[in-house]
C-alpha cells in the first residue's frame, strides 16, 4: 500500500508539473497497469480542469498512447552520431554476415515506410546532382535557396517525427551467422577509418587541415 501512496504522491507531483523524468515514467507505467490509479488520475485531472473552468465536453485518456510513445523513444543527447547510428545494432543483436544497414541519413535515401531497410536508392534513381546552384545573380546559400544546414539533422527519431511510420525498419538483416559483433566494435572500426580518411583528405587535397574539423567531437 505504501507503494500506492508513493505513486499517488508522484501522480500529484506530475499534476503540479513537479515530477522528474523517472517519476513520470513510473506514473505512466503504473497508470497503464493499475485501473484504480488511472481513475484517480482522471478524477484529479477533471477536478483540476473544473477548477480552472476548462472542463472539456469529452474526456480522453492519452496515457496509454503517451506511454507507448515513450517506450519507443530513443534517448536524446549524449551519444555521438555514430553511437546513434550503431545503437540499433546492439539492440537487435545483429550478427556478422550479409546484413544491409542504412544508418543515419535515412532521410536522404528517402523511401516509403516499410522499404527503408533495403539498400537505398540505385544509381539510376538518385537525384541528378547537376543542380543549377550557379544561377546568375545568386550569391549565397540563402539566395539560391539552399535549405539551412539544419536540414541535415537527421536521425531515426527525427525521421519518425517527419512522418516515418516505421523508423525502426532501417535495419534489415538478410542473413545471420553466429559471429556476433557489438555496436561498439563497429563504431570503433568506422571511427578509425573515418579518421584515416580525414587524414587522407587533408593530405591529398589542398585544403590543409580543414578536413580535420570533421573529426567527431562527441565522445567515442
Amino acid at each position, binding site marked *: 500500500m505504501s507503494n500506492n501512496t508513493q505513486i499517488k504522491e508522484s501522480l500529484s507531483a506530475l499534476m503540479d508539473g513537479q515530477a522528474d523524468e523517472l517519476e513520470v515514467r513510473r506514473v505512466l507505467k503504473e497508470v497503464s497497469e493499475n485501473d484504480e490509479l488511472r481513475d484517480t488520475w482522471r478524477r484529479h485531472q477533471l477536478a483540476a480542469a473544473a477548477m480552472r473552468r476548462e472542463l472539456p465536453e469529452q474526456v480522453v485518456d492519452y496515457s496509454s498512447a503517451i506511454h507507448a510513445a515513450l517506450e519507443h523513444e530513443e534517448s536524446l543527447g549524449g551519444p555521438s552520431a555514430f553511437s546513434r547510428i550503431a545503437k540499433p545494432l546492439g539492440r537487435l543483436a545483429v550478427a*556478422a554476415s550479409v546484413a544491409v544497414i542504412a544508418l543515419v541519413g535515412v532521410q536522404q535515401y528517402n523511401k516509403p515506410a516499410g522499404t527503408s531497410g533495403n539498400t537505398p536508392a540505385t*544509381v539510376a534513381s538518385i537525384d541528378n*546532382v547537376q543542380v543549377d546552384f*550557379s544561377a546568375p545573380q545568386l550569391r549565397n546559400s540563402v539566395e539560391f535557396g539552399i535549405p539551412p*544546414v539544419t536540414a541535415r539533422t537527421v536521425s531515426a527519431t527525427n525521421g519518425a517525427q517527419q512522418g516515418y511510420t516505421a523508423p525502426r525498419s532501417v535495419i534489415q538483416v538478410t542473413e545471420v551467422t553466429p559471429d556476433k559483433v557489438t555496436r561498439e566494435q563497429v563504431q570503433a572500426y568506422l571511427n578509425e577509418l573515418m579518421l584515416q580518411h580525414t587524414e587522407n583528405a587533408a593530405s591529398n587535397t*589542398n585544403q*590543409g*587541415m580543414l578536413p580535420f574539423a570533421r*573529426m567527431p*567531437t562527441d565522445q567515442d
Partner: protein
Amino acid sequence: MQLFSKLRQSLKLRLPFSLRLLHKRLGSLFVILITATPFSSSFALDDLSSVTNLLKQMAEANRQLSYQGIFSYEHGGALKTVKVFHSVRDGQEFERIIHLNGPEREVVRRGNNLNCQRLGDAMLKGELLRGESLRGAPSGLSELSRGYLESHYNLYMKGEDRVAGRDITIVHVVPKDKFRYGYVLGVDKETGLLLQSMLIGSKKRVLERFQFVDVTIRTLVDDMALEPTNQDHHLASLDAAPCLNEKGALPINSERHWKVTWLPPGFALSGYHISPERKRETLVFTDGLTVFSVFVDPDEVIKVPDMQAERGATVAFLSRIRNGNEEHVICVVGEIPIETAKKVAQSLIPIK
C-alpha cells in the same frame, strides 16, 4: 604570355578535339600573332580562365601562406569552432588545429614539403598531367593539360561577399555528373586563401560548411602556437599522400594487392598506404577537390555485415570480398554520394 594561355583556354572550348593537336603545334605562332596585335589588351578576361586562375592561386595560397584564425564547421545542424595555425618554415608546412568546443581535440601536422607536388594539387592547379600519373584511370585524361576541373565540374564566378571581415570571390563548382558533390568556394580576394567552403549535395542541400570567423593572413605564427598543448593530440601523417615524381607520376609500389576497376570520371589514384602491422591496404582517389579512401582489411579485423554509414557529408560503405580462401573487409569512405562509394567498392578486385 598569360593572355595567350587565356586565349588558348577559350579556344580549347571551341575547337573540336582533332584540332587541338594542330592548335598546340601552332601555339608559338599564336604568340607572335597576339603580341603583334595592337589591341590585344582589349580582350576581356574569359570568365572560365579567370576561375581557373583563381583556383590555381587558391591552391598555392592554401599551402604557402602563413595564417592563423578561427573557423566554424557546420554539419547536420551542429556547429563546431576550430582554431587553426598554418606556417611555412624552411619550405615546410607546420600546421595545428584545436577544436574549441566539445571534447578536446588537437591535430598537428609537420614537415609537408612545399616542393612535394601531389596529384590533387596538380589537378586543382591544372598543371600538366602526363598519362603516367593517371594510368589506371579509365577515363582517357592523359592529354589534358589545363583546366582539369572543368572536365568534371562547371565553374562559375558568382560575385563577391565578405567572410571574416575580408572580401572574397565566390566560385560555384557544379558537378557535371551525379558521382560527386558540388562546392561553393569563397576565396580571399587579396591572397587567394580559401575562407569559406560549402559542400552541396543533391537538391542543393548544404552538407557541410567551413567558414572562417576570424583570420590573420601573412602573419608571423609564433613557434609555440605550432606546438601541441594536449598530450592526447593526434599527429597527422602524410603516409598515404606520396609526392609525384619528376615525371609527374606516382611512385610505383609493387606491394599493392588491390585495384578498382571503376572510378567516377576524373578520379585517379593519388595515394596508397600499406600498414605493416594491420595489413591494411589503403587506396586514395581524388579529382582535385574531392577525396575518397578505399580500405581493405583482413577479415579477422572485424566481422561485420555489409552496411553503410554517414556522418555529416562523409559516407562509409562497408562490404566484403573473397580472394581465394581469404575473406576481406572493404570500406569506401569519402565525401561522395553513397552510390559512388558503393560502385567503387563493388569494382574492387585483387591484382593478380
